[in-house]
């Protein structure tokens, strides 16, 4: 399983890219995307990308 970013709500602030321990998040076009192959959902810890995301329900389990 992995997290995903709802592109229509993403502000492209980049905080999730900065926090991701797996370097799974990168800029694509106008928004960020999460590479599901690299995302580990933070191995059971609270997901860091979702924790820092400023917009509710934008960085969510896929």
């Amino acid at each position, binding site marked *: 399983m992995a997290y995903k970013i709802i592109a229509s*709500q993403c*502000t*492209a*602030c*980049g*905080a999730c*890219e*900065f*926090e991701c321990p797996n370097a799974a998040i990168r800029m694509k076009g106008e928004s960020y995307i999460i590479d599901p192959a690299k995302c580990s959902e933070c191995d059971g*810890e*609270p997901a*860091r990308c979702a*924790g*820092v995301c*400023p*917009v509710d329900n934008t960085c969510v389990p896929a």
Partner: protein
Amino acid sequence: MSQIISLDSISPLGSPVTVADMRAEMDKGGCSSSSCGSSDAQGDLPDHIWDKIKDHPCYSEEAHHYFARMHVAVAPACNIQCNYCNRKYDCANESRPGVVSERLTPEDAARKVIAVANEVPQLSVLGVAGPGDAVYDWRKTAKTFELVEKKLPDIKFCISTNGLALPDYVDDIAQHNIDHVTITFNALDPEIGAQIYPWIYYQGKRWTGRDAAQILLERQLEGLDALVKKGILVKINSVMIPGVNDQHLAEVNAEVKKRGAFLHNIMPLISDAAHGTHFGLIGQRGPSAAELKSLQDKVSDGTKLMKHCRQCRADAVGLLGEDRGQEFTMDKIAADIDYNPEKRDLYRQVVEKEREDRRRATAEMEAQLAVNSVSTVAEQPMLVAIATKGGGRVNQHFGHATEFQIYEVDSHGVRFSGHRRADNYCVGGYGEDDRLDIIIKALEGVSAVLCAKVGDCPKDTLAQAGIPVLDDYAFEYIETSVGAWYAAQMACGQEKATA
């Protein structure tokens, strides 16, 4: 409206730059028709602080007449949420909302700074001040400064932060010769902080409520102390939120002053449901001009208070009160651009001379006021509103003024007191009467308006409201004009008394 000068109208690089050109530039001021920074001149600031801020438009009220700043939005990520900020659009308080900022890579930002330095000789300061937190995403901020330092070694840097990540980067900040750091600090009491910050993100975890406010507070104070210890100037920004922290900010002022902050800038909350901020949506109101001034006056014996803050956009370019950002969007900047120092060097020489002249004229005027003063009567200082485009002169048409600089005058001299905004009265060359009502309301308590020119209709309307609008001092220095006006009032009063 900001003064927009199209790129076409600017003489091409390589054409000769003359002293006369630079004098013309100076009339555009640093921060147009507004006030910035600490009091008007050095005043009681220690020399080592004055040296650092005298050419900084945001900190020195005098410098804002002559110098310009630019902000680049290179670090959009943020580690806290504020109830007055909606990052989906732009932070309403740290930068004006409505226009989406141009997000820049450090490399693009450096090119943009050089393009602006070539065309805007007033440029003296580069800031990274949101959207986002300049310190949280430190790599991007640092990279930008590194690139710019190589080309423009004399430019000053400043950054703005919420303070949460600050203690971790104080050593790095010191290495970059950053003279000024601004910390946004809204509450000393975590209970109040919890009403302003719904959450923070710290050490891999989201914190809410009182815990969040407590952590943020501790990190802010730790960062403030560490910066002061390193000799870096710290300015504190506070957003005044009526009913939340307005009664509390005097306490904040005392604490940050005790810890060594050199300026405290209390800004009004900007709140509108259309901005989509939490405060906007729940109908939290911002303070009135009178409430803001009352708070500023109450704490003015503390840390030097900044009264001329313009709350500019985070990607603003130009003198305070004007934004030329749209002239310098990335698509207009050449891929390979070189810095030409000629304009800026000459501009600095011209400004030095002008500042000396202005100081001398002010000193003469104040000496004259003191001689003429009637010391038997306990006098009330009077407020005078000035329409200015910058350069420290009364040089704006009344109808073009979107805001007024307010000066306080009595027999002890002329002091800058603040600025008041009034929406542009003159739209497309004709006046609108309801706009005048807005101006009259904004000028409450003001005894006179000095401007370069004024039409008969607005002049009569304001006169009926008890505010004379005078163009007798057009293009003179502000301080000498206010002093001369005051001397005339006093002479008039004495005649009446003796008659």
